[in-house]
């Protein structure tokens, strides 16, 4: 879809006066059956996930993976040298099954460490960040999204997207400054 000036259209977007208005609008857009759309706010709005019809984030799966890797890494790093490569006798302390808990602190720490790395990289990866730019930044009002602006955008590639239909929906939900956002 292109504008009369030959720009590719990314989305039609509107600004809302408050978090409550944005929340209500999101429920309407969800119920209208749109798939490719998003809301933008300066802070996470409580309950917006359900209002948008999104499920739970499965980022936790990556964190579990990270934690298991950490535990296994620690086991390898500790037991490899301690039992195989370089058996260290300190003060004649015993080497038997009952001394294994002495290895637990490091296992615990590495489990936490790799879980935290997994969480850190997963939230960026799952959000496709970092990125240099985004079409929404082409809209001059959008700079307020990190201050006090609340925005909703329905993407042009959504199968239900029609200019008139989306404009009517945004108007009905109380959207202001309704505009077309360019892709480039």
């Amino acid at each position, binding site marked *: 879809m292109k504008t009369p000036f030959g720009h590719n259209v990314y989305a039609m977007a509107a600004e809302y006066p408050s978090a*409550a208005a944005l929340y209500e609008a999101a429920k309407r857009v969800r119920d209208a059956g749109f798939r490719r759309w998003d809301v933008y706010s300066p802070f996470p709005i409580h309950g917006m996930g359900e209002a948008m019809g999104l499920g739970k984030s499965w980022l936790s799966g990556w964190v579990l993976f990270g934690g298991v890797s950490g535990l296994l890494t620690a086991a390898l790093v500790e037991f490899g040298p301690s039992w195989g490569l370089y058996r260290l006798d300190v003060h004649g302390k015993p080497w038997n099954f009952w001394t294994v808990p002495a290895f637990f602190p490091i296992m615990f720490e590495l489990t936490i460490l790799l879980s935290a790395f997994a969480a850190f990289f997963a939230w960026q990866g799952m959000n496709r960040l970092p990125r240099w730019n985004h079409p929404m*930044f082409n809209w001059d009002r959008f700079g307020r999204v990190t201050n006090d602006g609340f925005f909703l955008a329905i993407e042009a590639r959504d199968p239900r997207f029609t200019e008139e239909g989306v404009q009517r929906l945004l108007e009905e939900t109380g959207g202001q400054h309704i505009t077309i956002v360019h892709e480039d």
Partner: protein
Amino acid sequence: MDSAPTAATETIKAAERRVAHIPLVLNRRNFSWLTERISGVVEQPAPRWWWVAFTITASAATFGLFCIGYQISTGVGTWGNQIPVGWAWDITNFVFWIGIGHAGTLISAILFLLRQKWRTSINRSAEAMTLFAVICAAIFPGIHVGRFWMAWYLAPIPNNWGIWQNFRSALMWDVFAVSTYFTVSVLFWYTGLVPDLATLRDRAKTRVRKFLFGIFALGWRGSNRNWRHYEMAYLLLAGLSTPLVLSVHSVVSFDFATTVIPTWHTTIFPPYFVAGAIFGGFAMVLTLLLPCRAMFKLHDVITPQHIDKMAKIILLTGSFVGYAYMMEFFVAWYSGNSYERFAFWNRIFGPYWWYWWLGMLFCNCLSPQLFWFRWCRRNILVVFFVSMCVNAGMWFERFIIIAGGLIRDFLPSSWRVFHPTWVDIWTYIGTLGIFTSLFLLFVRFLPMIAMSEVKTAVPEADPHYGEPPGIQSISHGGKERTR
């Protein structure tokens, strides 16, 4: 099926309403006021007091670094350490600094899991404080090994002698605990910073600021699809940091508890150290935040309510610490072990008697008891005074535990009292300089209050704001919503 409202339920409701009514952001400040005021600290030119303070702290830091260089190039003999006092100011400072860090993680992680919204005003600066404290802490184990250039032996890296670490040693656990703690704290802190860096990016006027904030904000655009994963990551990082912070000082305490020195060889150490760490850390948070709040006029964001709550945590953890001190004495007497009994007697009446009476008894046990009184929790000068007492008291406590345990060991012929040298003293002052310099740089260049989080504590952030109260209480359980 509602039962008829009785007098009791009415009283409870009235009390709940009163509790819910104390706003976390005063004077009904809106979102853009918060953005302006908090970003303004970073965007306006540095005030004169900042330059004065930074000059002083940076000078101390520089001299401290010189002392470290002198100590590394000359040897550990530049310190007052000797036999039997092999650990003295160096490890005291290490434990002191690592303990300071704990308050930051407690605020950012444990209070988050407990849904304490008041943490939002103080978590960013407390987390930054954690990082800087851990940096200061990490200096000491590194330089006290004597041959600093061989400190890499602590890491399990294959070397050409085929020598490996003793993974069953508490010192090795400590290496992993502290480095994990620092790394996870950095990840957590930076994750929290990203939305605020985006705010600064969108407000930036100069090309340099646009570029730098643009890079570090990672292209954040406040999308709710992004917030969803972000919040899950934040929750999990908080969940991971919670056992981590409890483990770090426990592991630090194992450095002592796994030895045979009287006063060290006790099972009470892990909880005692953790409580002390949180206690000392909150005192440092207040020490840093009260001046910042006054200088940057953040009274509407860091309110008397916040200070009151921190004072209560100091009272709680201070009482834990006081209890632990009493229990140590009791167990020393009850054990019937003459070495233990002597060591604790020596603690009160030995060469370091006044450290105990002033530091442990007055600063740590008695001074926080002032916080039983609301007037004291609300009086900034009293709060600041108690915080300074606790800062000093916790240093004394560590010194008494570490050096106090070593000066009188099992053989009277080897008894020797520790005296610090100028290098000891200035290395410590240097780390105070490093810590405060880093904190001053932080408040100048990064938002010291988590804007995106504080905004969620404003009533308008509630998606049900503006609905009649009846609907609101049905949809949200009512009482935690502040209106």
